[in-house]
């Protein structure tokens, strides 16, 4: 936040507003409560000023050229020198005393003219266009358009369904040539594959010959395209956007924790789009993170509880789990995919059964420097904060394997982790009883004694702590399968049965306890966590060698990087 002293005063339609020097005037106007319509300007991309929708009248306090003294009017006020021509707000930065007018006849004419020009060669296929309902052309045509057409000529014809890459389809006729997608590819995705060919009104967006728009950020071009030119091949023609309910969520793909919106209708998810968070993901997210919702309806989804492969009532499975836990030496395998609340409840469970060990499994991958970090789970730091674990997990459960072989562990309760994938052999699983809580069938569930189906991140509320030790919450977008239990509820229930207690599982309740017992979480109430997250003090874990090096808004601390 800028210091109060760094702020300067500018005037938008005579409204005074204080902004940091150099603030873009579109943003400054926004702060003054004035919307300046724009297409090509994007807060996270370079300014090119090509759409001309943001034209305003611009004035500067006058100074005498020779002396530099302010020029005053009769009233003793400094005179304003109004520019003879309208100027684009997007390329104008706040300077002391600068004034813009957005409501004059000149500005109205400019907007009206630009709208007319943008529409004359536009196909206007709104009825079959995916953008309809969230389209910049529709919006500003209503606000600033003429309302009728003066154009009687033939429209320019361009390619209609160009496949730019595996996930993006382009309708060139709808393109308003704002170049946002080109700048994004070049400046953010570092994959300069898009460009215009031809010139004038025939200019056509296209991919470099022999190349494809296939980087893992390609779908952001669809998000920032102000019109229906760039469409998501996955989402295309599936659902009218005004039917979509949007739910705040957090991407579980890696420890970056990109903020997202999940669009659903009648219990079905249709798309995931990024939600702006300038401290985490700006306005972007990965393509790979957008398809994670497919696990909701995955063929492998666990739809009912089972004991030794036989379907049972959930209640029966829970009781059986408790029986097994009571009867043996249990080890616990938790998950970096689990929420803070679930991890806290799992810790309680581990204490209740006096677990031989509590393990987590690291899921590592290559970092891309942007929004995909080396840690492919969203919440390893949550497990540290809640005290479920004290050191960073390994990729394989070697210690647990040894303990099983040595006969020290006879039961393993695993929350979401596939033990086979984490290095345990079929033979080792054969020696023990496995209790599995999770969402997808895998080699472990096929061997498990008890399987209890739970919910995906899209079906429940909770929180994660990302690589920056930023606490971020997510909300349920859709209901889960009817037989599935909320993970937190299942864990709380097992512990309650084990201890004859009544352990609450609602996030608000879990947080009451966390806020009172975990120092870095002191005073935090679940409902009060801001939508864009809350920075926690992670200094207690600064000595650990986390696998992440660099992301869009994250850089590993120097010491940690060198000890790594």
């Amino acid at each position: 936040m800028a210091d109060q002293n760094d702020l300067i005063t500018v005037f938008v339609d005579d409204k005074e507003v204080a902004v940091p020097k150099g603030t873009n005037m579109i943003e400054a106007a926004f702060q003054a409560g004035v919307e300046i319509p724009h297409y090509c300007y994007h807060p996270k991309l370079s300014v090119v000023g090509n759409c001309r929708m943001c034209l305003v009248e611009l004035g500067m306090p006058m100074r005498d050229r020779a002396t530099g003294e302010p020029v005053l009017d009769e009233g003793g006020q400094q005179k304003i020198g109004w520019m003879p021509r309208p100027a684009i707000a997007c390329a104008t930065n706040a300077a002391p005393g600068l004034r813009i007018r957005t409501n004059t006849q000149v500005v109205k004419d400019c907007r009206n003219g630009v709208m007319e020009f943008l529409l004359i060669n536009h196909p206007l296929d709104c009825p079959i266009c995916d953008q309809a309902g969230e389209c910049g052309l529709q919006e500003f045509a209503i606000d600033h358009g003429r309302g009728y057409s003066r154009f009687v000529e033939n429209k320019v014809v361009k390619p209609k369904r160009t496949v730019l890459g595996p996930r993006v389809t382009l309708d060139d006729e709808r393109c308003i040539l704002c170049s946002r997608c080109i700048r994004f590819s070049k400046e953010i995705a570092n994959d300069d594959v898009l460009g215009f060919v031809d010139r004038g009104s025939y200019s056509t967006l296209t991919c470099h010959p022999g190349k494809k728009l296939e980087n893992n950020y390609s779908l952001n071009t669809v998000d920032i395209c102000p019109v229906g030119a760039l469409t998501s091949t996955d989402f295309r023609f599936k659902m009218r956007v005004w039917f979509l309910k949007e739910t705040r969520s957090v991407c579980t793909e890696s420890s970056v924790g990109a903020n997202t919106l999940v669009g659903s209708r009648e219990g079905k998810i249709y798309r995931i789009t990024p939600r702006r968070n300038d401290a985490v993901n700006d306005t972007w997210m990965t393509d790979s993170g957008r398809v994670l919702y497919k696990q909701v309806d995955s063929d492998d989804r666990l739809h009912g509880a089972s004991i030794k492969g036989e379907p049972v009532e959930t209640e029966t499975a829970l009781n059986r789990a408790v029986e097994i836990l009571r009867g043996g030496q249990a080890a616990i395998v938790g998950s970096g995919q689990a929420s803070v609340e679930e991890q806290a409840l799992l810790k309680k469970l581990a204490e209740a059964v006096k677990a031989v060990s509590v393990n987590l499994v690291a899921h590592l991958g290559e970092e891309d420097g942007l929004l995909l970090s080396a840690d492919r789970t969203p919440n390893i730091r949550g497990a540290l904060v809640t005290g479920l674990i004290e050191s960073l997990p390994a990729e394989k459960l070697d210690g647990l394997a040894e303990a099983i072989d040595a006969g020290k562990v006879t039961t393993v309760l695993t929350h979401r982790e596939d033990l086979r994938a984490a290095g345990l052999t079929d033979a080792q699983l054969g020696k023990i009883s496995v209790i599995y809580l999770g969402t997808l069938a895998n080699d472990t569930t096929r061997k498990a004694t008890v399987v209890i189906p739970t919910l995906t991140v899209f079906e429940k509320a909770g929180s994660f702590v990302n690589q920056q030790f930023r606490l971020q919450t997510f909300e349920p977008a859709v209901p889960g399968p009817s037989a599935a239990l909320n993970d937190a509820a299942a864990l709380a229930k097992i512990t309650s049965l084990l201890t004859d207690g009544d352990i609450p599982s609602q996030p608000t309740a879990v947080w009451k306890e966390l806020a009172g017992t975990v120092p870095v979480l002191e005073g935090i109430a679940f409902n009060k966590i801001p939508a864009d997250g809350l920075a926690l003090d992670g200094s207690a874990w600064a000595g650990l060698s986390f696998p992440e090096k660099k992301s869009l808004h994250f850089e590993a601390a120097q010491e940690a990087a060198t000890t790594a």
Partner: protein
Amino acid sequence: MPVQERRIILKHVDQPDYTTDLDCYLRHGGYEVLRKALQSKPEELCQEVMKSGLRGRGGAGFSSGMKWNFLDRKSGKPIYLICNADESEPGTFKDRQIIHKDPHQLIEGIMVSCFAIQAKQAYIYIRGEFPLGARLLEKALDEARAKNFVGDNILGSGYSCDIVVHRGAGAYICGEETGLIESLEGKRPYPRIKPPFFPAVLGLYQCPTAVNNVETLCNVKHVIDMGGEAFSKIGKPNNTGTRILSVSGHVMKPGYYEFECGAITMGQLIDEVCGGLRPGRELKAIIPGGSSMKVLKAGERYKGKTKDGKEFEWGIRDIPLDFDSMLTAGSMAGSGGIIVMDDSTDMVEALANVNAFYAHESCGQCTPCREGSLWMNKISSRMSHGQARREDADLLESVAGQIAGRTICAFGEACAWPTQSFVDKFRDEFLAKADKSATPEATEPKRAAVPLI
């Protein structure tokens, strides 16, 4: 007294024995000015150019001394000089005379200018359609490098600067200085927004850059040769030196002519220099500074006060040929390309022709020019194909009005001014077209009769 050309820039051009090779240039005193310049202080040379009152010959007529003054010398970044040899404005064919017939004069002008602004590197951006010109320049440069007029440690002065010839690929917009710079950087020639990208501060490779026209740079040589003071005596105050006028259209002797600024009037140029109109024809209209400038109509009266307070009233033939007078007449001297139209001209057709050019050349970057230029072209083309409507005149004016002053670069004005001035001054012809059209009553034109643009 018959009017006399004063050839300074074109002095040797078209002389019987004058060739483009270095020996010939040296025989005519070539590179002596460079020799002299290298002995002076660069700031003093800039001062001379300022004193000379030289104004750019590329179109806008901006003071060259001022332009060089704006160069951001404090940045510590290298300074570049670019010679704009993209000459593409319809009706303009002066730079090509210099390039094709006296290339060494240009090279000397460039090197003197480079030394004056202490440029690190110079470029000649030559229009793609001048392949011979590019070859001639390359050859001349080889000769000049061999004699150490260009390159390292020029004539032992310790100053080094090379010139690179870069060919365009056939786009008018590459003549706009920031579009040119983008093109030179290897990108599409999309003109840059100003602010912040003023070439003098953030030009080529984001370094301070001077972009000057071919004729302007040749003039610099003569300014340094005769001194700024002496140069400023040629022509009229604020309109100094000579101008090369490219005359085309309905005159008996079209061609290029060099005159002192303001020394003759439009009438003298047409009737005495260019041999008059074709027999039996009346003057109808003149575009005075390349096709983008506002058209002048025969019979119009231009009234006003000159800078020194004298009142005047001119007819079209009385307008003196200099920057300021043409401005008083409501148009601009632009690139010096004068297009003369007699009474055989159909003004709707003429505008359709001009509009076709601008629709074809709009770079397409900004909305008003991209869409407006093509729309105007479609309207005027339809009108000239027997499908005019009475409301088209107003529509044309309105569309043009939505372009001018609202675009990234001056192409916006370049494409709007012809339409604005043609329709304004020849409205009756545009309306008459509608009355003569095949379907005057129709509001929806018959598309089949109109070419698909």
